[in-house]
C-alpha cells in the first residue's frame, strides 16, 4: 500500500487533490454547498440535460432545486448527454481514486456514458487508501459485496494503444471533475 503519513482531515484532502490532479482530474474545493452548486452549474454551461445519481446520494443540498430552476432535466440513459453527476462513496488519498458503489439510485452509467464526469465528494469521506475504506466497511458491519459493483476511478479514461500516444476519453469520460465539499 501507498504510505500516507499525515492522516488529519486537511492533509488527506490535500493529498487526495494532489494525487487526483496528477491523474488528470480537475479538483474544485467548495467551502459551502452554494459554492458547490455554482461550480456544477458552471461546468454544465447551457446543457439542457444530465445523467445523474439520485440527488439524495449527491452531497450538495440545493442542487436539485438549482438544476430545476435552470431548466436542466435529469434523464435516464440518453447517449447524447454531455455531463454525468455522481456522489462518491470515498476518496482514496494515496492514489487519488474515487470509490463509487452502485445500488438503487446510483446508476453505473452516470459516471460512464457522458464525456464529462462530475463527482461530488465529502471531505469526511477521504480515507488514506482502499484498505482503510474496506476496514471501515467491515467495522460498520457492511459486507463489501453488498453493493452491486465497486469501481475505483483514477482520472479520465485513457489509452496508449495507437503507437503509445496517450489519448484521453476513449470509451469512458475524457474529463473528470471532483468537487470536494
Amino acid at each position, binding site marked *: *500500500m*501507498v*504510505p500516507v503519513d499525515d492522516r488529519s482531515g486537511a492533509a488527506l484532502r490535500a493529498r487526495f487533490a494532489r*494525487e487526483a490532479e496528477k*491523474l488528470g482530474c480537475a479538483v474544485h474545493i467548495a467551502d459551502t454547498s452554494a459554492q458547490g452548486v455554482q461550480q456544477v452549474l458552471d461546468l454544465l454551461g447551457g446543457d439542457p440535460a444530465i445523467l445523474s445519481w439520485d440527488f439524495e446520494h449527491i452531497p450538495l443540498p440545493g442542487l436539485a432545486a438549482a438544476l430545476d430552476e435552470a431548466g436542466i432535466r435529469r434523464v*435516464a*440513459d440518453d*447517449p447524447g448527454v454531455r455531463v454525468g453527476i455522481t456522489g462518491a462513496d470515498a476518496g482514496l488519498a494515496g*492514489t*487519488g*481514486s474515487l470509490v463509487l458503489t*452502485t*445500488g*438503487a*439510485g446510483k*446508476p*453505473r*452509467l452516470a459516471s*460512464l456514458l457522458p464525456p464529462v464526469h462530475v463527482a461530488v465528494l465529502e471531505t469526511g469521506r477521504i480515507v488514506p*487508501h*482502499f*484498505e482503510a475504506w*474496506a476496514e471501515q466497511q467491515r467495522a460498520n458491519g457492511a*459486507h*463489501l*459485496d*453488498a*453493493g*452491486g*459493483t*465497486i*469501481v*475505483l*476511478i*483514477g*482520472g*479520465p*479514461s*485513457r*489509452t*496508449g*494503444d*495507437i*503507437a*503509445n*500516444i496517450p*489519448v484521453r*476519453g*476513449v*470509451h*469512458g*469520460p475524457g474529463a473528470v471533475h471532483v468537487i470536494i465539499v
Partner: protein
Amino acid sequence: MDVQSNNFIPAARIAIRDPQLQAALHASSTNSTRARAESLFAFGREHGEHMREQAAEAKRRALRRLPDLLERAEARMQANGMRVLWAEDAAEARRLVLDVIERHGARRIVKSKSTLTEEIDLNTALEDGGLDVLETDLGAYIVQIAGEHPSHIVGPALHMSKDTIRDLFVRELAMPPTDDAEQMTQFVRERLRQAFLGADLGICGGNFLIAETGSLCLSTNEGNGRMVTTLPRVLVALVGIEKVIESVDDFTTLAQMLARSNNGQVMTVYTQMIHGPRRPGETDGPEELYVILVDNGRSRIYGTGYAEALACIRCGACLNACPVYRSAGGHAYGWIYSGPIGAVITPLLAGLEHATPLPYASSLCGKCKDICPVRIDLPRMLLDLRHDLVTQGHSPALWSLGLHGWAAVSGAARLFSLARRGLRWGLRLVPNRLPGPLDGWTRYRDLPPAAPQSFYELWQERQKTRDHE
C-alpha cells in the same frame, strides 16, 4: 489461433529485419520499463521491493490454497446471484459460452480484452456460429479489423505504427484521413458507442477473483470494460482458475502491482469489483451474470515443478524487459503468450512438442525474474524445459537451431563478446560473477574460462602488423 511456435526462429529472423516493428518495439518497451521503475520505486527502493514481496506472497499463498479458495469463491459468487460454470478444456469453455448465447437468443456480442478467450479461440467459434463479435479495447479492435492476432498481452497492437493504423482505419472503416491519434480514437469511440448500446451480450475476462467476497475484478483503462459489464443484458466472464486470490487486501496489493508493472500507473483508471447482476431498484447492469472458470491445462501444471508459472498476473513487464522479445516481437512466439512468460507457458499449455524452440528463446540474462512483480523464476523454468526437451527426445537438430536462433535474435552474441572482453580483467577480481547488469547471466550459466586473447583481437593485431610490413 493455431500454435505456430515451432516457427519461432524463421519468424524472428523476419521480425528483426522489419525496421518499423523494431522501432515500435523499442519505443514501447523502453517507455513501459522506465515508467514501471519510476512508479514502483516512487517511495524508495525498499518500499517498492516490499510491495513486490507482498504481491509475490499473496499469489503464492493463493496457489497453495487453490482448491479451497476456488470453492469459497464459487460459494460467494453464487450467494451473490452469479451463475458459476466450470470448463475443463477449451472446447468445453467454448460450448458453455455458446450455450449461454443460445439460451438468451443473443446475436450481437461485445467483448472487452481477455487473453483467455484468445487462448481458447473463442472468437472463431462465435463467428463460425454466425454471431457478430466485436472487440472493444482499442488495441484489440485494431488487431481484429486488421485480421491479426495480439502481439502483446497488454497492448495488442503495439507492433503497429500510427501510420499503419491510420491506413487501416481509412481502408476498412472509411475514416476521414487524419494523422492525429486523438481524432482516430474519437472516430473509434463513436463507432463502438453504437455497438455497446446495441449489444445483447457482453464477454469479459477477469484479472482476479476474490474468494473472501466473490468479487470478479477487472483492471482497465479505456472504459470499454465497464461498458461491456454494464450495458448488455447478459454478461459472461471467463476466468482462469489460477486467478483466484484470498482476500480484498491481497487484491489491493496485486491491483497496484499489476498497474505499476505494466506501464507505471499507480492503479488502472478503472478498477472494478463486480458482485453479481443488477439488484432490485437498479436501472443498469447485466440482468444475468455467468462466470465460467476455465482449467484448460492449469490443474495439470499445478501438479508439476512449473506450478509457479500460474502465479503470473499478466502484467507484461517481463516481455518489455526481455532482449529476445524486444527484438523478435510478440508474433514470432507463434501463440498468444509471448516473451519470457510465453516461452514458459506456451510449451506447458500447448505441449512441448508444439513449442520446441521457445525454451531457447532466452539468453537467460535474468531480467524477467528481476522485474516480475510476483517474482516468478522464469529462467529456472526455461532451463527445466530445456532439460525436458532433451529427456523427451526433441533435441539435437533443434538444439543447434535454437542456439543459433537466440544468438541472432537476442543480440546475445554481441553482449557475450562485450562481456568476455571485460572479463579478462574482471575474472581476476570476481572469478564467477559478472558485474552489474550481467549479474543475472552468471546466476544461470557458468562462464567459460576466458582465452588470453579473443580470436577477434588476435585477428586485429595480425592485420595491424601486416599493415606495417
